[in-house]
């Protein structure tokens, strides 16, 4: 077996030296970390305060909007102060206001005690406001018609002219223009084809400001409507808050625990993530394997190899080497996923998680599921089986083709075939033990993907064991056949063999 290990080692070492391998290895955790950290960082560093101007021709909405923005800013300041207090850098400054167990700041008491100075803590820098209103340029009247105002504001909005803020130049981020007749425009469906509130900005991706404007103005319009009809807005608000409770329940769970929570939903969908990982891994590895076989074949290194090792050793060595490349990649991927999830989960207190709603629980729930279910071991097993099955096919294919180009056309068929489990990935979790999922589980090429998808849905034991046995047998069969074809095909020159010939090789 020594030659097989030597071949495996070379295969591993040479692939591990490629830039592509490291890129693939690091890109995945980098993307996950970035997708979690970047929003946090951006929040922390803060985008510079964005300046906007407001023209409220009717005069009824601007004060409300200012009030709303101020409230938003206060909430952000409170949040920042809470984080600062929990950080523990200046614990003595908050003496008496911190919860001794989870270091939560009792904001209500704190603000009551400190009054206007509630943000004055040594070392604490309150976040810069996200939005700040600037006064209108001199030649624009506070009650100008939106179209006029827009025409005059264009140079500022386009960045050709700058605002002057505290003696420094600042760009105008947006203009909010509210027509005087907004109330009439909003009646019924008369708003169609009319502009109504105009939100001008070069940056249409940041929707925080326009949404705030839209929500506030509409709330105010509705409030006025209720009053006009003699309804008490407070009563209406109370009625609108009415909501009949509804709970999803799972009959399979123990009494008292039937409620379907976020964890259950993750349990349902997490396998899909693994199926995707499996798919990407098998696919990437198949490419490496194909390239490697064809390289040896096309430059005839294969002859030297075959004068030193048997075709069987060569095949086993290649499979081992490339499987270990794939396993390394997957281990790093999953490992980094687990590390990130656990790290994120540990930094969140229960009170905070409750405050932030369900999403903050996500890392913790994922960690629990990974720890308590068969997901990871199942993944390892199905990866190995899937890898061996498909690499057998690829090896046989590679050994009969002279160039990568020739192989690619056959590869297309395999890819198309592999698309099916990918497309079913979203469908199967909805009905993991349904007829379609069950039927596909018994089809070896799809067994790893479909069973992986069903793993947390408690599939019947008959399916688990049966499909596993079938898959092992099928994989062994594919490898046996691949060995035969590999032996015959690897030295053949000229045209790829025809199908009939392949069958003869299998029977020989």
């Amino acid at each position, binding site marked *: 077996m*020594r*030659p097989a290990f*030597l*071949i495996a080692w*070379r295969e591993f070492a*040479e692939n591990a*030296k*490629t830039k592509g391998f490291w890129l693939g290895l690091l890109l995945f955790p980098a993307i996950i970390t970035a997708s979690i950290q970047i929003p946090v960082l951006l929040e922390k560093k803060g985008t510079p305060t964005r300046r906007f101007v407001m023209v409220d021709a009717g005069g009824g909405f601007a004060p409300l909007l200012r009030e709303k923005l101020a409230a938003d800013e206060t909430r952000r300041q409170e949040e920042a102060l809470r984080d600062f207090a929990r950080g523990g850098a200046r614990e003595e400054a908050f003496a008496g206001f911190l919860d001794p167990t989870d270091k939560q700041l009792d904001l209500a008491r704190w603000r009551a005690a400190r009054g206007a100075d509630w943000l004055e803590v040594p070392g604490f820098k309150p976040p810069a406001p996200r939005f700040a209103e600037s006064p209108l340029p001199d030649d624009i009247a506070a009650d100008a018609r939106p179209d006029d105002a827009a025409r005059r504001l264009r140079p500022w909005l386009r960045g050709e002219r700058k605002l002057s803020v505290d003696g420094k130049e600042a760009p105008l981020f947006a203009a909010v223009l509210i027509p005087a007749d907004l109330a009439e425009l909003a009646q019924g469906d008369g708003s169609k084809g009319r502009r109504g509130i105009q939100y001008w900005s070069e940056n249409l991706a940041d929707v925080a400001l326009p949404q705030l404007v839209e929500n506030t103005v509409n709330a105010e319009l509705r409030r006025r409507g209720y009053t006009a009809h003699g309804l008490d807005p407070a009563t209406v608000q109370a009625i609108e808050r009415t909501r009949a409770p509804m709970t999803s329940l799972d009959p399979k769970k123990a009494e008292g625990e039937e409620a379907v929570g976020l964890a259950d939903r993750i349990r349902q969908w997490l396998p899909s993530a693994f199926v995707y990982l499996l798919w990407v891994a098998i696919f990437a590895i198949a490419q490496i394997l194909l390239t490697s076989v064809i*390289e040896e074949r*096309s*430059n*005839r*290194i294969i*002859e*030297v*190899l*075959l*004068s*030193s*090792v*048997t075709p069987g050793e060569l095949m086993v060595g290649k499979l081992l080497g490339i499987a270990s490349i794939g396993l390394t990649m997957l281990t790093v991927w999953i490992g980094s996923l687990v590390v990130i999830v656990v790290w994120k989960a540990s930094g969140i207190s229960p009170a905070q998680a409750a405050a932030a709603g369900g999403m903050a629980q996500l890392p913790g729930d994922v960690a629990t599921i990974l720890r308590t279910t068969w997901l990871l071991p199942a993944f390892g097993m199905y990866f190995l089986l899937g890898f061996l099955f498909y690499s057998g096919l690829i090896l046989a294919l590679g050994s009969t083709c002279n160039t990568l180009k020739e192989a690619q056309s056959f590869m297309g068929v395999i890819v198309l075939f592999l698309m099916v489990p990918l497309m079913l990935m979203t469908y199967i979790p909805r009905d993991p033990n349904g007829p379609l999922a069950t039927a596909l589980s018994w089809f070896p090429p799809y067994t790893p993907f479909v069973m992986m998808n069903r793993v947390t849905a408690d599939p019947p034991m008959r399916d688990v064991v049966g499909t596993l046995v079938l898959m092992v047998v099928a994989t062994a069969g594919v490898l046996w056949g691949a060995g035969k074809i590999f032996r015959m095909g690897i*030295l053949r020159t000229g045209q790829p063999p025809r199908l009939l010939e392949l069958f003869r090789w299998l029977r020989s």
Partner: protein
Amino acid sequence: MTAPVLELRNVTKTYGTFTAVDDLSLSVPAGCVHGFLGPNGAGKTTSLRMILEIIRPTSGTITLLGSPSALAVRGRIGYLPEEKGLYKKMKAWAIIAYFATLKGMGHRAAKARAFELLERYGLKDFAEAKTEALSKGMGQKVQVLAAIAHDPEFVILDEPFSGLDPVNQTVMEDIITDLRKRGRTVIFSTHVMAHAERLCDRLAIIAKGRKLFDGTPAEARETLPRRVRIQTADDIAPLRSLPEVADLLPMADGGCEVELRHGADAQAVLQACFAHGIRLRTFRFDEPTLHDVFVKLVGPDAKEAMYR
């Protein structure tokens, strides 16, 4: 020249109706450089692959280093295939060391050996270069070194000279000569007779899968009648009656080739010329070359080889 290290007995290889190698028998003694000559498509590569057990003969037996299976003794064999290729991304020393370890050498010994060989054959500066950066000739030398790095007793080189410039051809000849000095057995195929002439202790000529000749270069030359080339204005008819002379062949330039009988001495012709008063402008006696032998044996098939 002791007991044969390689013995082929009635080896035949057919692909469907095509016979690549036809009833080939061959015996290569130890410590001998054996040439394997033949035009393209003669079955040289197929024969070598069968010797290596990369492919199996349809019938017949092959014994290599006392074993019926080359795989059993593969650690003692070195092989350079006809089509040359290397892993593009590997360094020169790493490839040599890799193939040596596949043949059973330890990692450290293989690495030391790779550097030693690269230095000895003038490739020291390229040891750390990736093979894709090497010229074709250098790549080929690296591949030969990879084939002999584990110091095999038996080395098979398939067309080792093809694609090499004259300088590198000399280096290749040096490699083969060195192997012989160390008592190794080398079998190499070629269709360039000059290399065979200089290197071979023994040679086999095959064409269309059949062996046409097997023996030493001297024996090969003896298969051809020896000729004396003369130029004269006088009548040479009297030479025809000499017992040593088989035939007189007039040449286009007015000269004549005198074909001698087997074992005859050219001196007799010269004496006869003096005796008959034939004034010679030229009298040249050449040994036939392997090239002549090859052309004679292979006939029309040799044309292709001649022009290469």
